[in-house]
């Protein structure tokens, strides 16, 4: 070992010390001969980055992304600032993500009074009102039911409200359209618990209430509760993240995210909707005449190009893949078209995941960029035949003050210098 002290290693001193320690350890196991071979290989000038010449990091109990991926972060919006730092939204950085599943740590968040720190042993779900047998369920009890797993998107009905600003914001796509994400959810169909409690025929709505400090609450039609509503306990294979409703949330596939009440503590069967604050003063869609649509639950058919997108720059002319995400609260995506000339002509994109209803679909379209100005758009059609509306057509339906359910076509311009900008077309 002494002979190695003087070698011309390119490694910094700290690493060398560690290497020496490790090679000494290796020598104990394999004998000095193998250490001699490794030292000789380095001396011959074989290729190998510094990290190929040191022993790697040890095991961790919970893995983290590479330190070089640190810039991949959610886009945080806090309308009340430090007054209420957990009130607002944190949007998924869709411009940096691929595939259709959003990593749990990058899933969009919309919270009204921060994230509660819930002890699952103390939490319970109460089911009462118009039922034969009012019941409460511990998290342990809920976890003992046969489980159902599905992939569903979740979108805040305020997603893309930033695309309604007077001037197009020059921010990444996720900061505009990322109040939306897609996960694999596992839990118990709500129908199972309603059958156990004996839902009475006169029950038409369920008041769902969270255990956050806002006690966020919404009225849910019984039809949805009996169809595909899920009492979710797991997200992407692990227990729900606190920000996503740990230990138990409601999951209403395809419907506005606000209704998928997180930290679910109570369900009350009622004859009429309760008209909570978040289904009257908020999440209602003001129309031009001053009246508002209420109980607009389903999220409309929608798509957005994630790459290339706003704030990116194309380094050279040539071949690019235009890719993005499409989804519909009504069911499956049937078609996504891409335009590279501001909607003058459209071409079909290739789809991944289109067999799943109410889940994100990835679309891809090969594009030869000549180096001239272009406007990129995508337009989705769902299995019900609904087509994503143009921006002007969408705007005409609502008051300028409406901020919900914007599913209109998004446009990115590409300049001759390759810079990609958010534009209104």
């Amino acid at each position, binding site marked *: 070992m002494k002979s190695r002290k003087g070698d011309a290693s390119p490694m910094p001193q700290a690493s060398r010390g560690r290497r020496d320690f490790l090679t000494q350890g290796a020598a104990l196991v394999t004998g000095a001969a193998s250490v001699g071979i490794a030292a000789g290989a380095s001396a011959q000038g074989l290729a190998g980055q510094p990290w190929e010449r040191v022993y790697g990091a040890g095991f961790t109990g919970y893995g983290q992304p590479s330190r070089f991926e640190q810039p991949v972060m959610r886009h945080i919006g806090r309308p009340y600032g430090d007054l*209420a730092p957990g009130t607002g939204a944190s949007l998924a950085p869709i411009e940096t993500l691929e595939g259709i599943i959003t990593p749990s740590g990058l899933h969009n968040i919309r919270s009204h009074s921060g994230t509660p720190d819930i002890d699952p042993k103390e939490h319970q779900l109460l089911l009462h009102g118009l039922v034969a047998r009012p019941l409460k369920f511990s998290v342990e009890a809920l976890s003992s039911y046969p489980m159902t797993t599905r992939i569903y998107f979740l979108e805040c009905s305020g997603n893309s409200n930033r695309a309604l600003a007077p001037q197009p914001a020059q921010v990444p796509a996720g900061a505009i359209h990322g109040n939306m994400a897609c996960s694999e959810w596992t839990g118990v*169909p709500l129908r199972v618990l309603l059958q156990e409690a004996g839902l009475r025929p006169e029950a038409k709505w369920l*008041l769902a209430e969270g255990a956050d400090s806002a006690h966020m609450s919404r009225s849910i039609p019984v039809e949805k509760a009996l169809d595909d509503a899920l009492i979710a306990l797991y997200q992407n294979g692990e227990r729900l993240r606190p920000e996503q409703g740990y230990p138990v949330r409601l999951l209403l596939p395809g419907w506005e995210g606000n209704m998928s009440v997180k930290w679910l503590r109570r369900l009350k069967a009622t004859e009429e909707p309760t008209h909570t604050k978040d289904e*009257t003063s908020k999440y209602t869609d003001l129309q031009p005449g001053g*009246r508002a649509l209420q109980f607009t639950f389903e999220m409309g058919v929608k798509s957005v190009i994630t790459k290339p997108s706003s704030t990116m720059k194309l380094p050279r002319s040539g071949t690019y893949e235009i890719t993005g995400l499409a989804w519909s609260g009504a069911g499956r995506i049937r078609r996504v078209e891409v335009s590279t000339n501001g909607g003058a002509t459209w071409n079909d994109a290739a789809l991944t995941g289109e067999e799943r209803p109410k889940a994100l679909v990835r679309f891809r379209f090969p594009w030869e960029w000549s180096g001239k100005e272009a406007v990129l758009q995508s337009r989705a059609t769902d299995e019900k035949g609904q087509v994503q509306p143009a921006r002007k057509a969408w705007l005409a339906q609502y008051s300028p003050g409406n901020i919900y359910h914007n599913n209109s076509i998004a446009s990115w311009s590409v300049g001759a210098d390759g810079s990609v900008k958010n534009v209104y077309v």
Partner: protein
Amino acid sequence: MFTSERNAIVIAIGAAALAACASLPSAPGKPPALGTAVSAEEIARFDISIPPSGAGLPAGSGTVKQGAQVYAAKCLACHGEKGAGKPADALVGGIGSLATPKPVRTVGSYWPYATTLFDYTRRAMPITNPLSLTDDEVYAVSAYVLFLNGIIGEDAVMNAQTLPRVKMPNRDGFISDWPPRKL
């Protein structure tokens, strides 16, 4: 076959049919039925939702004058002098603005039911200490906010009987989209 047995079979078939037509089928097998009975007293401690009928409103009452004191102590710092807003949402104003290009949505101009004001204040406010107000304080501060909007008089008293009867200016301003409109 005994009637009870027949009924049990009919119920089982009904449940199976329900599950069969649902777009999220249940996992195979009989669910374990692990819910436990819950007493009326326990339900009452959790059941804080108040519908427009006022069902479930607690005993107690509050006046506009009492509400002004509660407001000054617990609401003003966020919602501003006389509900003018800033840093948090304005509670007053905007009546008549909904059809204009710049609609202002407040309790006065937009909220269709006064019961929602009681419900939300009790469950979520003040934001740093929810569930801390007494029912009397919630009635009182609700009265004060309704008074600031010109909806009730200065001498009005809010309680389980009077609050649901308050006619909000935008009571008829909503069109229900459920069940969904036909395309």
